[in-house]
């Protein structure tokens, strides 16, 4: 009875977030799917295969990029290390679809750089292919591996690495035999985020002609006119993610707690290695951020005068307002869930984060179905209100906020709360005066992550917005849909700039050991 009562608050909160996803998961009960026999037998096997291929390739590439750069900047000293340390986070500010289209524009079959290269060297590059997409996605998403890997290397393993060095372990052996295995849980968590991002992407896979499960959702929905089958593929996607999360839990089992808090001191590299490290980090940074960012910026100022940026002021304001509200709401919910989970060890909190993997358009169906039903009951119109948009973003991005909060709360031993209680503080006072102040950096990190994602988000914004409300991402979409990439560059640039601020702040916070 006691456990049941302890679980109830978190379970109810989790349910609030899971409701729209339940609409998806229970689709076979309440929707017809006239084309399901065809979709299940003809499309699903191919689409599952291409999804698996893309996820595996992207994750492997992201691991190579993320772990190598993280190890270099955390454990070694070489020219430029201090700059690379924060700059390698910057690709997170680029929305995947914008980055993918920019890459195609540069390195596709008629890309500006591929043509220039073909002219000079006769070598013809074409990145607009399924394997090319894996490179492009890995370049955008590797910071999800880089950040946790860098944090794991920097904090907590200096004793082990010192021991390895004293026992005569060479640099490579220290990395592969000591550091990487110790950091494996953190790296696996990052790899899971990369996989989730690949699964929910639609803009990039469509442009590159790769048929993932998410592409299958849209083919059923828009091509076969069968939203029932689309929701069922959404259900398959949820299953895939549950499987991945289960794998993540297994990886999590070996997670180290209470390693030494000593910060790792970077060892200076010597000779040619010193410059190889610089060149590798510079290449990664240039390919992942420098090139796409420069392209967008150059296009933006070729098509528009600087003052044209002012035209996008209202859209920028809307973007930041909706992003800010969503960040606050998500933060509050994540805080309640993680705090509840801490006391009751409930797993609902983790489950509630599953919305992160579901394509925005599918969450939109769930949220709108709920909103419509509530309006029928109460008469209050919800669809097309900022409130419902904020709710949808909470459903979508909760996982991003719960992760840092859980990590932050894990660092506070329960004995802390108990001491406060023994000294006569109420639970509420304990929470406000003890737990919350200690959690401040984690709270900020969580809010920034959500803000950054909402600024980049497109499909939910597009369909749930009120009349005549533009955000930066809907502005990009308007231009990109009519294949006027040049005109889309200015709002795209503003999205990146809006995203850069939280990204850099986030990096600062993580440096301080959040």
């Amino acid at each position, binding site marked *: 009875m006691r456990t049941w009562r302890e679980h109830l*608050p978190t379970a109810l909160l989790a349910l*609030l977030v899971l409701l729209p996803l339940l609409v998806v998961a229970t689709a076979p009960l309440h929707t017809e799917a006239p084309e399901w026999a065809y979709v299940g037998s*003809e499309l699903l096997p191919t689409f599952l295969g291409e999804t698996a291929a893309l996820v595996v390739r992207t994750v492997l590439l992201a691991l190579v990029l993320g772990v190598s750069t993280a190890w270099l900047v955390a454990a070694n000293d070489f020219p430029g290390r201090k700059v690379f340390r924060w700059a390698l986070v910057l690709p997170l500010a680029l929305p995947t679809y914008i980055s993918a289209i920019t890459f*195609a524009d540069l390195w*596709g*079959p*008629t890309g*500006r750089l591929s043509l220039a290269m073909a002219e000079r060297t006769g070598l013809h590059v074409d990145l*607009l*292919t399924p394997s090319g997409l894996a490179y492009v996605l890995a370049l955008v998403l590797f910071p999800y591996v880089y950040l946790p890997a860098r944090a794991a290397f920097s904090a907590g393993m200096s004793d082990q690495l010192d021991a390895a060095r004293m026992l005569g372990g060479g640099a490579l052996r220290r990395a592969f035999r000591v550091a990487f295995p110790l950091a494996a849980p953190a790296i696996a968590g990052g790899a899971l985020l990369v996989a989730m991002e690949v699964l929910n992407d639609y803009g990039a896979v*469509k*442009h*590159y*002609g790769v048929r993932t499960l998410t592409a299958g959702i*849209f*083919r059923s*929905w*828009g*091509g*076969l*006119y069968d*939203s029932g089958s689309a929701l069922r593929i959404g259900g398959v996607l949820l299953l895939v993610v549950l499987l991945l999360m289960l794998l993540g839990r297994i990886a999590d089992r070996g997670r180290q707690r209470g390693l030494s808090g000593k910060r790792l001191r970077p060892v200076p590299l010597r000779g040619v290695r010193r410059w190889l490290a610089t060149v590798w980090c510079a290449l990664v940074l240039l390919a992942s951020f420098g090139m796409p960012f420069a392209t967008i910026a150059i296009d933006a100022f070729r098509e528009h005068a600087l003052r044209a940026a002012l035209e996008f002021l209202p859209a920028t304001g809307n973007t930041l307002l909706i992003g800010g*509200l969503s960040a606050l*709401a998500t933060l*509050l*919910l994540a805080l*309640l869930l993680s*705090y*509840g989970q801490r006391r009751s060890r409930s797993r609902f909190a983790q489950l509630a984060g599953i919305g992160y993997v579901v394509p925005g358009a599918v969450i*939109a*169906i769930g949220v*709108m179905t709920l*909103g*419509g039903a509530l*309006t029928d009951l109460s008469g209050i*119109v*919800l*669809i*097309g*209100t*900022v*409130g*419902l948009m*904020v709710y949808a973003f909470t459903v979508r991005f909760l996982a991003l906020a719960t992760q840092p909060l859980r990590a932050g709360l894990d660092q506070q031993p329960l004995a802390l709360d108990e001491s406060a209680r023994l000294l006569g503080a*109420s639970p*509420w006072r304990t*929470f406000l005066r003890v737990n919350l102040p200690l959690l401040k950096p984690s709270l900020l990190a969580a809010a920034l992550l959500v803000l950054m994602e909402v600024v980049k988000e497109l499909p939910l914004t*597009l*369909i749930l917005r*009120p*009349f*005549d*409300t533009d955000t930066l991402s*809907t502005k990009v979409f*308007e231009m990109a*849909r*009519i*294949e*006027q990439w*040049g005109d889309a560059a200015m709002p795209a640039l503003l999205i990146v700039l809006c995203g850069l601020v939280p990204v850099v702040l986030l990096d600062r916070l993580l440096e301080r050991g959040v």
Partner: protein
Amino acid sequence: MRKLLPLLALLPFAACAPKTDNATSDTLGADSARVVNVYTHRHYETDKALFKRFTEQTGIAVNVIMADDDELLSRLEAEGQNSPADIIITADAGRLGLARQRGYLKPVKSAVLESAIPAHLRDPEGHWFGFTMRARVFAYDKSKVKPEELRSYADITKPRFKGKVLVRPADNVYNQSLVAAMVAHDGTEKAQAWCAGVVANMARAPKGSDTDQLLAIGEGQGEVAIANSYYIGKLLTSDDPARQKAKNAIGVVFPDLNGHGTHVNISGGGVAKYAKHEAEAVQLLEFFVSDEAQQAFAEGNMEFPVKAGIPAAAVLQGFGAFTPDTLDLSQLGLHNADAVKVLEAAGWK
């Protein structure tokens, strides 16, 4: 106290919920301030300018939500009779047929619309009306192909064009509606044979946009592309340096579909089933077929006007005259699923 914590989570929602948008509150005072609420898939500057002109001329304010058509239909479904939408506009006849079939539209009578729009470009009972056309045409490399070699859609499946055909992926709605028209005219088998013929002749795996196919001709990566007249018009009037090579290289033909003419699709709209401003909605649709609006669609957006006597943009006229297929466009929606299956079976990615 801790038990009350969950309630806090509801606060932001409660704070935002009553803040309904101006459109819905306007519905109450419809007499004092006349409005029309538009759900549209079209996202063009031309449309924005026309909405503004409409407001200037009639005093009716236009509120717009622009999003993808499938999502818009889902939103209508979820909103049911509480939907604020008065007009639904899409850039695909198939979706309009679907909207009718699902009961999202209501029939309206308008002598203005019926006289301005040819019968095959509107629903016989007035559920929806087409106001512009786009043709699915061939763009070819003028230095390598003679236009006589490309009279019909079937011509690109000939051995002559092996490894020379450029086209975007099967997910694109205009590819689907072209194949749906073939299914409607000649059945799935012939449509599939054509798709297989195209796949056998492809210069590369389908990728990118319509414009990308045109740029590939400019680089000599293929000799003929299937593309939308509207994108070709945009390319031929572009001053982007990266597009000049393609601009100078391509010619355009209107292929024939087994004697039926060139495949066209429409942009069109209908009045929403639960429209609260029906009169204003019809007025807006009628404005779309006025000479002024038809000229704006033609000149500003490179679309073919539906109204007789309004000329297409000069650059489109340069392609020559063409005979549009007069297939009843509701057939496109009925056969879209068949088209998707045919494309998949033929290996068109």
